[in-house]
Each structure stands twice: as structure tokens, then as C-alpha cells.
């Protein structure tokens, strides 16, 4: 399937900012089942946008802008050809052995509730890992309420788990937290998802997870959709948690009254070209 993506982030300031710096993780790379046909990164202000590969093998772009800045827009757009691999992730850059992804972070460290839930689903380790992961994915999908206002980027897995509310990012944190608690390597994935309900324009990208099963390798679980990754998923960046895969990490100096607007559009390339 060919997927066309446009992702625009616009910052506006009532009082202009004097300086800004951002690190973008907004460029997908190729792996089995994913081929980047074309992709471009544009920053509205005059600056050098330096590409670099980060610790996890993600492609980053870093730029600094001198002010005064009253509006700053970051636009990425392109087309990606995808194939269904039944959720099995192969051919990506692997910088670390799977055991590295057993490491919990401040956002994923499990509390008693998550640990208890994971132990129960895994039948205290008696159940095969793959089955356990599928059951965890379904449990999150069935029991959590999608709510964009309930959580923020700093919400921990434990907080989201307690509230049973959240967004895909929170589900991914809970999944990683529980898998790692069960000594199953797991990582956070940021990317885009072509929705099945025909909705093209949204205000954010998507997040899911990958967990490692010996003999099979990395398998992509998407608890927000209750499915393993399909050809509708475009994988952009991985990390131990959201912070490691964040699409944008940046700071501005000065500048008051910031308003940020995000527009993400994910569509089938063929469908758009027919319009």
C-alpha cells in the first residue's frame, strides 16, 4: 500500500521568541515491509537542518533559529510504500541487543498495579510470551478509554493505568512497562497510522510498541487498535519511551503566548491522486 503523509506543526508567539532549537524525529527509514518513496523536511525559517542518526538508529534533524520569531512552522511530507508483515519487524537498524530494552524509564517503571496485572495475564510466567503479549494488547484495547484530555506527555504508565484513560502513547508505555516487568524486551514506537474508518486528518501521529520474542524477533503490537502492526502502520522512530522517540523536542528562548497547531494527514496515495 502506498501511504501519503503530511505533518505540519506551527508555533505562533504573541511576543516574538529570540531563539529556538529543535530536534526532530520525523523521518521514516526503510525496513522489511516499509520503503520510503520520498520524504522531505522543511522549516519555515532560514536555518541549516542537520541530519544525524541517533542512539536508537532513528534519523533526526536538528536546527537552531535566531529570532525574532513570531511564527515557526515545521513541515514534513512524503510517501511510504508498505506491506503487511504480520507484525514482524525485520531489516531495521538494530543498535542494541534485545536485553537493552528490558530497561525501565521514569515513564514506564511499573507500580504494584501494573506488575500485578502483568503477572496475572502471564499466569506468573506460565503462559507462553507471545500469547501473553497478545492478551495484554487485547486487555488494554478492551478496557481503556481513549481520551486526549486525560493525559499529557509527562504522564507515567502507572498514572495512566490507574485512570484507565489515555492516548496511544499511554497504552504503549503501559505495554512496555508490563512486558519489561515480565522480562520481555519491549520498546516504544512512534509513527503514523492509516485509519480504517476513513478519517484522514488528525492532530497527532500514532504510537505503538515492539516486543522481542526469541526465534521470532521483534513483533509490533498496537494496543490502541488491538492489532499487530499492518501495512497501515508507518514506523518512524523507536525509543525506551516517548522521550526517546518524540517527534519534536525543542526549546525556545523568550517569546510569550505560544500557540501550537498540529495537522497530520495520513491517506492512501492512490485515493488522493484519484481526487
Amino acid at each position, binding site marked *: 500500500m502506498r501511504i501519503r503523509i503530511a505533518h505540519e506543526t506551527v508555533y505562533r508567539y504573541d511576543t516574538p521568541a529570540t*531563539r529556538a532549537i529543535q530536534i526532530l524525529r520525523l523521518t521514516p527509514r526503510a525496513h522489511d515491509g516499509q520503503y520510503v518513496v520520498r520524504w522531505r523536511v522543511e522549516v519555515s525559517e532560514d536555518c541549516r537542518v542537520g541530519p544525524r542518526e541517533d542512539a536508537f538508529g532513528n534519523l533526526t534533524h536538528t536546527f537552531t533559529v535566531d529570532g525574532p520569531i513570531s511564527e515557526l512552522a515545521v513541515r514534513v511530507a512524503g510517501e511510504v510504500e508498505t506491506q503487511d508483515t504480520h507484525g514482524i519487524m525485520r531489516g531495521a537498524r538494530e543498535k*542494541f*541487543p534485545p*536485553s537493552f530494552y*528490558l*530497561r525501565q524509564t521514569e515513564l514506564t517503571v511499573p507500580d504494584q498495579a501494573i506488575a500485578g496485572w502483568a503477572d496475572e495475564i502471564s499466569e506468573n510466567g506460565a503462559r507462553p510470551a507471545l500469547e501473553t503479549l497478545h492478551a495484554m494488547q487485547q486487555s488494554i484495547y478492551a478496557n481503556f478509554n481513549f481520551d486526549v484530555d486525560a493525559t499529557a506527555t509527562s504522564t507515567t504508565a502507572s498514572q495512566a493505568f490507574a485512570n484507565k484513560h489515555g492516548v496511544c502513547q499511554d497504552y504503549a508505555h503501559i505495554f512496555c512497562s508490563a512486558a519489561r516487568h515480565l522480562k520481555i524486551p519491549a520498546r516504544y514506537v512512534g509513527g503514523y497510522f492509516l485509519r480504517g474508518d476513513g478519517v484522514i486528518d488528525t492532530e497527532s501521529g500514532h504510537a505503538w510498541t515492539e516486543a522481542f520474542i526469541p526465534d521470532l524477533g521483534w513483533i509490533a503490537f498496537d494496543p490502541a487498535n488491538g492489532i499487530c502492526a499492518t501495512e497501515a502502520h508507518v514506523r518512524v522512530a523507536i525509543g*525506551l519511551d516517548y522521550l526517546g522517540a518524540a517527534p519534536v*523536542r525543542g526549546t525556545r528562548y523568550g517569546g510569550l503566548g505560544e500557540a501550537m497547531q498540529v495537522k497530520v494527514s495520513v491517506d492512501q496515495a492512490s485515493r488522493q491522486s484519484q481526487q
Partner: protein
Amino acid sequence: MSSRSPDFFDEMRASDGSIRPAYRQLAHWLDTVPKDVLDYRRKEAEFIFRRIGITFAVYGDAASTERLIPFDIIPRILNRGEWQKLSRGLEQRVKALNMYLSDAYHKREILRAGIVPEELIYGNPVFRPEMNGQAVPHDIYVMIAGIDVVRVDPDNFYVLEDNARVPSGVSYMLENREIMLRLFPELFIDHPVAPVDNYADELLATLKSVAPNNSSGDPTVVLMTPGIYNSAYYEHSFLADKLGCELVEGRDMFVKGDMLYMRTTEGPKRVDVIYRRVDDDFIDPLSFRPDSMLGVPGLMSVYQAGNVTLANAVGTGIADDKAVYSYMPDIIKFYLGEEPILKNVDTWRCREPDHLKYVLDNIEKLVVKEVHGSGGYGMLIGPAADKKTIENFAAKVKAAPEGFIAQPTLALSTCPTFVEEGIAPRHVDLRPFVLTGRDRTRIVPGGLTRVALSKGSLVVNSSQGGGTKDTWVLDR
């Protein structure tokens, strides 16, 4: 004049009661100097320390106010031979630490050789993935190391702990010497004491030597502090002054393109080397803790581009935590093909089930430490603890064994110390500072001697009521 415990190695008196050669003059002086003179000098020393404001803050203390670290006016003496052996051992150890770090973040030959387990690197919360495969200028990670050593007999030095992140305490080494020179000039006439006041010059030479290759002929060095609320702020300002460099906070610097600049009255100035006294977690909110206000956004990008040197490098924690400590003798042998000159204390790793069993069975005899603790916090001294404390601690160890190691209680050496009861032996350790530059290793003869002031106490940490002494290395 003083009672001596036969169970401990006394650095001044041999077991037959005779005075060791290095202490002969000092012992004679201690015998003849009137007590009230010592008392008067001690008060004078305290007055000076208070006036110059050399204080520290105790974390976790409800009445957390700035405190003065008690200073003992009786110096601790090492002879030339002892120092030479010690400094050879220090150089060897720090060389191995640097090689281990370079290997752990690149080829990881030590894992392939099966010397250390994989989780010691990857499972370590202070392993920084951001440093994986990342070249650092001149392949040097630890430019400033503080190695805590103790003696238990006349022949051996044991390393208690390596400090490869942001070791502090060197200002006390320098201040203690200045005060001793002021209070007891006559003692320096009788003793050929090797100087330490060249430390700042040696540190600056070290820092300049590790500047990025593309920096100017005279690299700009700054000292980066978390600010006035940090417990070691006094030391930061003291050292910046001695180095003749700018004392900066994160907000005084900014990233533009791939370069780091500091704001000056004459406009932005490129920074080549940061002697940073800010922990990894806080140095760049775009790479580490996003809520940090102490760092410079984007600093890691400049670092990754090779345009600034951080001293010490990011991610050095994997070389100095208490879990890797127990592997140090093997690490030294692996990289250098040499026997370690300095000894390691026997260590039980609670992560290993048979070790854990031994520790829990013998906990009342052991010192149990948190792998990531420091400053004497989170530690149990079995022989000195009551039953309830031991039980509580054992429960903590059982809950998370990988977070703990245990060691036998060491019979730390004693030195004569001026305390309430007069001159009496008290337990000491020593933190010498090892500087690693591109050109060579520099170790100023001496270090910070810490002394446990309460009778029988083995805890020398300043946060736990320890004091300091001037450390003399005799030049002949």
C-alpha cells in the same frame, strides 16, 4: 599520650609502640606542643573556614543548613615510597576505567570475552544509549577521577570506590593545605612536604589538552555549575577562580548551529571545553530530563558533532557504580594485561543468588551498600546497626537484590586526631584526584583525607559527621 587499638593499622605507631619514620618529627612535636596551643589553633582554623565560607549542605537533613566540615589540624603523612606505589596504582586504575568506557560504548570486546555480564552495561540505568558508538574527543572519558582508597596494613592500599562522574572534594585538599601553611609554618620547615597548590594549573592543562581538534589554539574552558543551591557550589566557584575560567550555569550558554556559545559582555564566545559539575540527567533537556532547568538545550548535539568536550564525558557512571567495582581487577587485567597494583575489597554481588544467600545469612557482619548510592546514604554497617535496622535493610535487599552489594567491614587504618579526649587514633580514608589529559596523567601528591571523628566509627563521609585532614606526601 594516646591509646592505640591493636586491631587496626595505626599509621603513626607500629605495633611495638615505636613511631614510624615518616611521623617521627610530628610525634615529637605533638609530645611537646602544649594542648592549649593546639586548641587555640583549631579554633583559629575554624574561624578561617567560616570566614571564607567553605561550607556544604547536607541533603535529607530536615534542618538543612550550610555546615562546616570539621577540620583536624593534625596532618596525615605518607612517605615517598608509599605515595609512589599508590600513584602508580591510581594511574593504572584510571587508565583501565577509560578503556572500559571506550569499549563499553563501542566494540564491547569485554562482553565477547565474557569478563563482565551484558546487564552490567545494558541493564545499568546510567548506561547512556546516547553515547553508544559516539566518539568523544581523544577517546578520553574520565579526565577527573577521585579514587577512594583505604589502608589496612603497611603494604596495601585498597580501593573502596571509584568516582568517575563529578567527584568533589578537591577544594578541601587545597584549602586544608593553605590553612596548615598559615597555622603551622614551622612544621613545613621540618617536613619536606610535596606541594599541592599546582593542582589548578594541572587541571587547566588537562582540560585544554582534551579540547576538540577544531578548537582554537587557546581553547576556552568553562566550569559549569548547577548553581548556588548545589551542595558543592563553594567548590565550583573556588575552582573556577583558581582556574581563571568562567563559572557558568546552563542559562549562560546556548547552541547555535553545531556550536556552543556563552554569553559575554563582548558578545557570544565559543566554548570548547566544559568542566561540568552537573549530572548527566540535567545537562540537556532535549536529550535527558526534559524538566531540567540547569542544562543547555541542544548541548548533546554539539557534543555529538565533536565540537565541545565534556569533562567528564557523558555516561561514565557505568564505570564507577558499585556493581562494576567488583569486576575491576578483571577489567584491569583484560585491558592492560597487568596485575592490579591497588587491591579491591572482596565484594558480594546480591544479584547473584549464592552471593545473596551469603549476604542475608551474614548481614550483621557486613557492610551493605546500594549500587547507586553515594555519600554514605543508603548503606548498612552490620556490626554497628541494631536488630530492627538490620531487619528492615535485609527486606530492602531481598526486594531488589540487584541494587545491592556487600563487603566485609574493613579495618580502616587510623591516624592521630585532635578530639575532645585529646590526641587519639581515628579511622581515615583518602581521595586522591587523578587527571587524565591527552598528553599524560597528572596526580598531585596528596588528596583529601577524611576522618571519622567519633571513636570507633568507620564512616568518614562528611554528610555523616566526618572531618578532613591535610595530607602530606614527603618528598624524600
